[in-house]
C-alpha cells in the first residue's frame, strides 16, 4: 500500500501472470506444534516486504542475532504479493508483509499460519489497542509493523486557509482548482467521497458507492493529477497546494518544507495497518516466528519511525522516540486514541471487487 509503485508493479506482475494457469491453493489452519528448541541455524528464511521499508542490513542483522540464513525479497503492492501467494501452493516465502485487510483475506483462505505466541514474547511491547484490530482480533495471524492514517497534506501559504474537511479536496475553492491531487489506488480513492458523505469506508452498499463514484467523477477535472507516489514532491515544488496523503508520506514533504501541514479531516479517515504474517506453507516456521519477534523488539521497530517516519504500534519504541523528531514531524505525534477514532480498513470478501470496479470506472472516465 503506501509504497505503491505502479510502474514497477508492471514488471513484477508479469511474473505473477506466469503462474496464472496453475492457480490453486491448499487449505490449512496452522495447527501443527512448533518446536521451541528448534535449531534456527538449520533453517532459512525468505521474507517478502515492500521496497525501502526496512533497514538495508536487516537480513544480516537478523542472521547475526539468530543464525538464520535470511533472504529479503521485495514486492511493490499488496496486490502483487497476494497474487504471488495465491498463485502457487508453495510460493517459497516464509514471512510476508501485507496490509491488515489482506492479512484477513489470506487468513480466511487458509494461507496463513497461526502465530505461536510463546515464540513471540516481544508482542508485549505493543500498545494494547494493537491487539484488538478488527481485521485480526488478538493478532492470531498477524503482528502489526506500522500504522497510520490518511488525510490532507497541504501548504498553508498556497491554500491561504486551513482545510478541515474532505470537501475541501472534493470541491476545491476556485483558486485551488488544478492544484490538488488524490490517491488513485485500492481503497483510498473512494475514501474521501465516502467519508464526506458520512458513510463507512468499508461500505458495500451500492447506492453509497454509486454516490461516491459520481462525486469522484465530478472531482476529477479539478485535480492536477492522480498521484500515489510523488504527491509530496508536488507540494514541495508548489505545483500542488493540497494533496490526499498517507500521514507518513506527508512527512517526506515536511522534510523539505517545514510549512507543510497534515490534517485528518473532521469526517474522519482510515486506520491502516501494515502487518507481518507467516505463511502456512512455510517449512521454517520457528525461524519465521523468531523474525517477527525480532522486529517487535523496540530497538528494531523504532527504526521504522525514525527512518520511514511512520508510526509503529510498538509502545516501547514510540515512547523512546526522540521528542525533537515528533516536533519536526507532527504526524508521529498522532496519539493512539486519535488513531482509533478512525475507521480500520477491513477485508470485504467478494464485495472488495465493488471498490476495484469503482476505481477502474473513475480512472477510465474522461
Amino acid at each position, binding site marked *: 500500500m503506501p509504497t505503491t509503485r*505502479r*510502474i514497477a*508493479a*508492471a514488471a513484477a*506482475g508479469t511474473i*505473477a*501472470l506466469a503462474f*496464472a*494457469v496453475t*492457480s490453486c491453493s491448499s487449505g490449512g489452519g496452522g495447527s501443527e506444534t512448533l518446536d521451541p528448541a528448534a535449531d534456527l541455524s538449520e533453517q532459512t528464511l525468505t521474507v517478502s516486504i515492500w521496497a525501502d521499508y526496512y533497514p538495508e542490513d536487516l537480513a544480516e542483522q537478523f542472521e547475526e542475532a539468530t543464525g538464520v540464513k535470511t533472504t529479503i525479497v521485495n514486492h511493490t*503492492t499488496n*496486490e*502483487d504479493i*497476494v*497474487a504471488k501467494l*495465491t*498463485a502457487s501452493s508453495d510460493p517459497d516465502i516464509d514471512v510476508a508483509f501485507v496490509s491488515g485487510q489482506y492479512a484477513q*483475506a489470506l487468513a480466511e483462505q487458509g494461507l496463513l499460519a497461526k502465530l505461536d505466541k510463546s515464540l513471540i514474547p516481544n508482542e508485549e511491547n505493543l500498545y494494547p489497542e494493537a491487539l484488538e484490530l478488527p481485521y485480526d482480533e488478538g493478532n492470531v495471524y498477524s503482528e502489526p509493523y506500522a500504522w497510520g492514517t490518511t488525510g490532507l497534506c497541504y501548504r498553508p501559504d498556497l491554500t491561504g486557509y486551513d482545510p478541515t474537511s474532505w470537501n475541501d479536496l472534493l470541491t476545491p475553492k476556485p483558486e485551488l482548482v*488544478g492544484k490538488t*491531487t488524490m490517491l*488513485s*489506488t*485500492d481503497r483510498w480513492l473512494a475514501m474521501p467521497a465516502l467519508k464526506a458523505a458520512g458513510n463507512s469506508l468499508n461500505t458495500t452498499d451500492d447506492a453509497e458507492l454509486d454516490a461516491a463514484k459520481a462525486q469522484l467523477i465530478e472531482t*476529477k*477535472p479539478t*485535480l*492536477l*493529477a*492522480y*498521484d500515489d507516489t510523488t504527491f509530496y514532491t508536488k507540494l514541495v*515544488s*508548489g*505545483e500542488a497546494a493540497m494533496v490526499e496523503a498517507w500521514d507518513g508520506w506527508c512527512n517526506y514533504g515536511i522534510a523539505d518544507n517545514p510549512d507543510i501541514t497534515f490534517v485528518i479531516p473532521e469526517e474522519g479517515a482510515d486506520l491502516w495497518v501494515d502487518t507481518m504474517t507467516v505463511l502456512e506453507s512455510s517449512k521454517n516456521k520457528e525461524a519465521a516466528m523468531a523474525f517477527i519477534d525480532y522486529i517487535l523488539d523496540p530497538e528494531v521497530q523504532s527504526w521504522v519511525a525514525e527512518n520511514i517516519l511512520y508510526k509503529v504500534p510498538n509502545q516501547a519504541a514510540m515512547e523512546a522516540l526522540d521528542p525533537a523528531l515528533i516536533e519536526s514531524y507532527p504526524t508521529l505525534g498522532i496519539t493512539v486514541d486519535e488513531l482509533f477514532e478512525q475507521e480500520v480498513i477491513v477485508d470485504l470478501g*467478494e464485495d*472488495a*471487487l465493488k471498490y*476495484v*470496479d469503482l*476505481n*477502474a*470506472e473513475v*480512472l*477510465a*472516465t*474522461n
Partner: protein
Amino acid sequence: MTSTLQGTTPAARAPRARRGIASLPFLAPGTIFLIVFMAIPVGLLFFYTFFKRGRFGGLVFEFTLDNWIKLAEPLYLGVILQSIVLALIVTVLALLIGYPMAYAIAGLSPTWRTVALIAIVLPFWTNFLIRTYAWILLLNNAGWVNQWLQGLGLTDEPISMLYTPQAIVVGLLYMYLPLMVLPLYASLQQLDPSLREAATNLGASPWRAFRTVTLPLSLPGALTGCIFVFVPAMSNFVIPELIGGGKTIMVGNLVRDQFFEARDWPFGATLALVLTLLLVLVILVQSAVSRRLTEGPRRG
C-alpha cells in the same frame, strides 16, 4: 540496376516451392520463437477472455461472455477510440517533423551523417523513465519552460502544460520520433541519386523531382516509420500516467489497471487481445499498401 528495382524483376523471383523448402532451416528458430512467445501467449489471452475472474487475480473456470459484453460499454470503447486518436496525432506529427529531418540527414556528408544518426539514437541510451521524468521537470507549472516564459515576460501566470492530453502527445512524440526518422532515413539514403538527376535533366523542377521521384520511393519507409510510431504510442501507459497525471488514460493504462489494480485478468486479457488485434490490423494494412507501392499495381 538499383536495388529497389531488382526486387521487382521476374528473374529475381525463384520458383515459390523450391524457395520455401530451402529456407526452412533458416525459418525454424524464428518460427519456434514466435510460437512459444507469441502464438501461445496470445492463445492464452484468447482463452482467458471466456472465464470469470478470481478474487485475487487468476481465473475461475466458469464460462462467460461478460468480458466481451463489458468491452462494448461506452466507457471502454471511448478509451480505445481516444488512444487511436492520440496515437494518430503523434504519428502524423512525427511524420511531419521526421521527414525533413531524415531528408536532411540523407543529404549530409558521410561523417556528418554518422554524427546526426548518433545524435538521434543517443537519447535511447538513457532510461525511458528518466527521460519521461525530465519532461515533468520541463513542463510543470514551476518548471523550466514556465520559468523562461515568465522570465521573458511572455506570460505572467504559469501556463498549465503538464497533466494534459497535449502533454501526452508531446511526451509520446519525443519518445518515438527516432523510430520515424530511422526507417525514413534508410529509405531516403538508398535512393539512387541518378533517378533524381534524370528527372532534373529532363527538365523537372527540384520540387517536381521530389514530388514525383523521391517522395513516392520513400513512402514505404514512411509507412514503416508510421507503424513504428503508432504501435508503441497506442499501447504506452507510462507517459499517460506520468505526464498525463493519470487523468487521460489510454488503452495501455486500461490493460495495466485491469491486471494490477482490478486484478481482473479475463477482462484485462480481452482488452489486451483487442489491442493486439487492432495493431495487427494496422500492420496488415501497412504491408498491403507498402507492397502495392513497391511492386506497383498488380498485373492480371
